[in-house]
């Protein structure tokens, strides 16, 4: 989407344009300072001095409010009359022509500032129109993308199931079980997709309910790894969670989901021979716990470190695994709902690193009381 900083909001006539008035005074003072030596030492004509003031009016008219432009015109004529019209330092309009000078100066200021205003308004309109087109386009492509992503597994399921129903007698046992595997595998893929869509909706609508409880991180990691057992197959996976890691205050289901999505990616986007690592450390002088999911695969494309967290963003993907680009966006939503941060990068020796943090704003509840038989080693 467009960057709001590129178009600072301006409402020239609403609030008194204090900054504009200050600029008006400054610009007139600058013009006077510049004109003074030119007039007295170099021998500039009065008309040329006026031109200098006019430049100031033009600048204010294009950059500030209309009232600031009017003020600049007035100040310019006053300054010019006082300083460059004989008798000097008196406000005596000896000649009718200075009234005309003033009128021209004022008119220029007003016309220019009106023009500038119109141009700005038009560009604002154009910008809004563009944003509408952009949003509409995005919505359409997202919808068609999502329906496509849902229809692919559905087609495979329908195809395999109808083959089984209609041709069962002609199918070898191997072919039959292949069809059944397809049905099962594609249903799982569809389930994952729908779950991701639901989670994303929940994250975006602010409907994420974070039920925080103090717990050892080991438990969340263990629960996720157990659920991933089948997908991990014979993959090498190392966990590095120091036993003295403090308890963290998290929603275990949600943080489990974060780890799940990160590991799911690490499995999907690296060759089966690569190693995955999960590491947790206290960081930021004990103000947070940082959790890293590290792989030694191809890494993420350079320059996509932030974009990978946008929804529906997908970079290079292997043929057999077509994601929808929601996994990391969900991770970010969940981590931010915990008050933490998430980021991605590549290791110099190759492979991707995803790190998220959990703030330790409160100290963990004590374990030393009647419910405990002894002070556990990690509570010091």
């Amino acid at each position, binding site marked *: 989407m467009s960057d709001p900083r590129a178009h600072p909001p301006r409402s020239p006539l609403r609030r008194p344009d204090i900054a504009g008035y200050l600029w008006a005074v400054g610009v007139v003072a600058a013009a006077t300072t510049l004109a003074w030596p030119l007039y007295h030492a170099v021998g500039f004509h009065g008309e040329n001095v006026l031109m200098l003031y006019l430049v100031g009016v033009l600048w204010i008219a294009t950059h500030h409010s209309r009232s600031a432009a009017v003020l600049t015109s007035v100040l310019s004529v006053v300054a010019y009359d006082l300083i460059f019209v004989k008798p000097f330092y008196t406000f005596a309009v000896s000649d009718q022509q200075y009234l005309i000078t003033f009128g021209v100066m004022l008119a220029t200021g007003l016309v220019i500032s009106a023009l500038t205003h119109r141009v700005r308004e038009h560009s604002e309109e154009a910008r809004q129109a563009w944003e509408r087109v952009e949003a509409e386009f995005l919505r359409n492509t997202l919808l068609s993308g999502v329906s496509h992503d849902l229809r692919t597994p559905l087609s495979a399921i329908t195809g395999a199931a109808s083959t089984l129903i209609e041709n069962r007698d002609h199918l070898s046992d191997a072919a039959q079980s292949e069809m059944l595997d397809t049905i099962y595998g594609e249903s799982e893929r569809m*389930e994952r997709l729908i779950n991701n869509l639901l989670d994303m909706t929940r994250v975006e609508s602010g409907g994420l309910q974070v039920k925080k*409880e103090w717990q050892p991180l*080991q*438990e969340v990691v263990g629960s996720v*790894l*157990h659920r991933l057992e089948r997908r991990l197959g014979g993959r090498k996976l190392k966990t590095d969670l120091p036993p003295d890691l403090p308890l963290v205050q998290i929603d275990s289901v949600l943080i*489990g989901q974060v780890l799940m999505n990160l590991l799911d990616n690490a499995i999907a986007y690296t060759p089966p021979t690569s190693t995955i690592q999960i590491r947790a450390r206290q960081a930021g002088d004990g103000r947070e716990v940082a959790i890293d999911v590290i792989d030694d695969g191809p890494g993420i494309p350079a320059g996509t470190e932030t974009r990978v967290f946008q929804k529906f963003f997908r970079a290079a993907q292997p043929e057999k695994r077509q994601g929808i680009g929601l996994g990391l966006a969900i991770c970010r939503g969940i981590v931010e709902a915990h008050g933490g941060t998430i980021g991605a990068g590549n290791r110099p020796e190759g492979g991707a690193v995803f790190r998220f943090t959990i703030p330790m704003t409160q100290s963990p509840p004590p*374990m030393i009381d009647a*419910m405990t038989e*002894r002070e556990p080693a990690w509570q010091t």
Partner: protein
Amino acid sequence: MADLKPTVLVIEDEPPLQRFLRVTLEAQSFKVIEATSGENGLRHAATAQPDLVVLDLGLPDMDGVEVTRRLREWTAIPIIIVSARGKEQDKVVALDAGADDYLTKPFGVGELLARVRVALRHLAAANRDTGDPIFEARGLRVDLSRREVTIDGNAVHLTPNEFKLLTVLVKNAGKVLTHRQLLKEVWGPGSAEETHYLRVYMNQLRQKLEGDATRPQLLLTEPGVGYRLLDQ
């Protein structure tokens, strides 16, 4: 009782899921009775005297938790609840109200039959009242009457609370236990909110019994619900 076909009452309003449950359970030689509403289910439960109930929490006419409570007013038959992902709180409420176990939609046959098997076994054990069992799985052996815990034949030293926790898990092996249930059993009533005690002890128990708390094979976490000691 062993040679009689056990009867399962399925209270489920969605036809495809109904059909899946009936076909699967009948293939395992259960007798299946079906009900599509809570009221209907309660009536069948009273008249047909099933051995087990499979109950969907999302019924059109009545909250599944309410059905569980009404059943528990007069019977201890195993209740396995079925509910959607993301409804952990509902599951916990139903389990605390007396349901025995749960399945999250969509689930496979393997899971369904494992839950049914465990529930029926606990029912049988409760009826026979065999006293403290000896638990054995994956090299872990727990002899409750002798207070002995060994891994591959080597004795493991547990603190009293760790042993108490393990005892509750062993007595309910295969079955899910909510945080509240475990806290109440081990630390007594009034400690139901102190889940971090339970989690820390569970962590210690895993370290002692499984070596690595991040790769549990036996003492499983049921996310957002509680724990389950795997029985095989």
